[in-house]
């Protein structure tokens, strides 16, 4: 179906490649020497806080901004300098940018009519079917709900069968419930039509739900790129550790690097971390462990062979959130660690002031360079 756009043979022929892309606005470097490849047909997410350069990157691909340096290409075709309307790329805009004077049908048909292809009516009908808006074809955008407008924006872009579909925070304006629904919907459509999606978002859950590959951006550069589970389980930087989910980061000193497991000194207690997950090998390092990986149990009550144990904790806060209970545990060195526990109902509940030991499997921890800010990438109050 992409044949009329001049697709080459076989998969991979229409990969999106950015090489050394830099975009400066005056003195401000929005995107700094970015290089990445998005394979054809994948669902790729650019994730980062506002101002990290993700939207600028998207606009460079769309042709709405010209990069200060670097090249953008799709397959073998260099599109760095081509005008937006000449690129095999379409965008779902953050504000949708639907044409208020046109009906839903004409909005969706807009791109086809501009290109003068045949069978506009029929293809538009099919697209309206795909985004489930057939009965709204005759309405104006102002007469639709937010979720429906979102689907018009999606259909209007998808009908052109672009090599790459760009989505700029497409779900940002929807309420939480509708957003969850649309996430599933988007993923379904992407799987169905096999077009490359590049999705910009600041919502880590959204990125993890939908994307095959996530690039976490911060300050104009990619901090880490990989599959959602890989980023979550094995972050390379404190920024990624904090921006995707939550992490406990504890200052440790590396004692022994001879085995497959590095031995660390954690405020006087010995813990281990796998070599593959150790991103620093000497000196000091941040030991990271996700709150849901930690099991808290009454001090001395359980045998902890083969796992990491930190003793001497005291429960300092208990919040019951339904599916789980979230504890804060104050450690002997004064730091409060987060522990999430599923409410399976099989363990006796811990209470405020209980003395506890914290345990987790060695393969669940990771070790990061101590030079980094342990608070980087934390979601601040008021951020959504």
């Amino acid at each position, binding site marked *: 179906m992409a044949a009329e756009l001049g697709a080459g043979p076989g998969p991979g022929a229409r990969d999106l490649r950015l090489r050394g892309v830099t975009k400066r606005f005056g003195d401000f470097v929005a995107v700094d020497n970015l290089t990445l490849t998005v394979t054809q047909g994948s669902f790729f997410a650019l994730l980062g806080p506002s101002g990290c350069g993700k939207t600028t990157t998207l606009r460079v691909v769309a042709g709405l901004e010209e990069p200060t340096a670097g090249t953008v290409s799709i397959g073998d075709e260099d599109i760095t300098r081509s005008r937006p309307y000449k690129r095999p790329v379409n965008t779902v805009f953050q504000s949708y*940018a639907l044409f208020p004077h046109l009906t839903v049908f004409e909005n969706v048909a807009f791109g086809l009519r501009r290109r003068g292809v045949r069978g506009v009516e029929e293809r538009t009908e099919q697209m309206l079917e795909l985004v489930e808006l057939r009965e709204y074809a005759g309405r104006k955008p102002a007469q639709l709900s937010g979720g429906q407008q979102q689907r018009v924006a999606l259909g209007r872009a998808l009908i052109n069968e672009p090599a790459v579909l760009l989505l700029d925070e497409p779900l940002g304006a929807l309420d939480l419930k509708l957003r969850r629904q649309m996430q599933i919907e988007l993923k379904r459509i992407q799987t169905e039509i096999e077009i490359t999606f590049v999705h910009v978002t600041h919502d880590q859950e959204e990125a993890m739900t939908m994307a095959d590959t996530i690039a976490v951006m911060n300050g104009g550069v990619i901090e880490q790129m990989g599959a959602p589970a890989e980023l979550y389980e094995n972050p390379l930087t404190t920024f990624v550790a904090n921006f995707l989910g939550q992490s406990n980061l504890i200052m440790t000193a590396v004692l022994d690097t001879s085995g497959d497991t590095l031995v660390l000194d954690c405020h006087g207690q010995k813990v281990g971390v796998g070599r593959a997950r150790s991103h620093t090998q000497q000196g000091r390092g941040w030991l990271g462990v996700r709150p849901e990986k930690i099991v808290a149990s009454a001090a001395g009550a359980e045998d902890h062979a083969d796992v990491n144990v930190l003793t001497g904790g005291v429960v300092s806060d208990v919040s019951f959130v339904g599916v789980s209970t979230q504890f804060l545990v104050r450690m002997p060195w004064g730091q409060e660690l987060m522990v999430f526990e599923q409410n399976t109902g099989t363990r006796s509940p811990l209470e405020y002031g209980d003395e506890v030991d914290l345990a987790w499997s060695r393969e669940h921890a990771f070790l990061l360079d101590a030079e980094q800010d342990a608070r980087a990438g934390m979601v601040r109050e008021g951020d959504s």
Partner: protein
Amino acid sequence: MTPPGRPPVVDGENPRRRRYGWLLLVPGMLWLVVFFLLPTVQLFFTSLYDPSGSYEFGYAMTWRFQNYADAVRDNWDLFVRSFLYAGITTAVCLLLAYPLAYAIAFKSGRWKNFLLVLVIAPFFTSFLLRTLSWSAILSDQGPVTSFFQTIAILPDDGRLLATPVAVVAGLIYNFLPFMTLPLYASLDKVDPRLIEAAGDLYSSPFTGFRKVTVPLSTPGVVAGTLLTFIPACGDYINAELLGTTRQYMIGNRIQAAFLRERDYPVAATLSLILMLVVVAMVVVYVRRAGTEKLV
């Protein structure tokens, strides 16, 4: 608080509010009745007086509808000229004002407010004075005429003043702000992201302009053309000061009949005909432009 025994009402349905809301209409309505409706009715009666009466000796009410046929027969050339001049004025104003309003809305950056002040700056001087100064600019010894003679657009004895060109030029000048401001208002509301979206959807800048910007500025085009065409039809100052009797418009005839000849039945008849024709044209125009379908 809900009084006992009465169902609570939703805010918008407050019966008190519904009962007194119409009071807001009263001042405006009174004004219109006293200063528009009653004079129009009076005008209608005057138009049916016996034309053989006079200002000095009074008129007799004879319900003479023949006055209308007479007025059209005697003055049809003035009507045609008025609508022609007003039509040319409106078209040229649109051609001049659209790029101007577009530039102010999209390209002027921090100069936007300054440029808008410049557009309305002519209003700080009286209409009459500005038109008078045009007669100086276009006079036979003036710089514009001699420039046009030098570059041989005009013959050596050609003139600008006292020609249709001068009258239409004056009309265009005087009504340009009335075209520019509504156009600016509707162009300024066009979201630049829509133009970006059009570009993303395979529209060249020109196609995007044609398919998105122009349709979205239609309300401004309609408002601007009406604000230009309607007053231009009835204008007499420009023809009076920049033209001769051979460029006179229907406004000049009405003005002369009312103020100089004191021939009230003819003046009233002509006024009402002008009003009806303009209203008819506007209704057809607005219907065709389909503004009610716009968002």
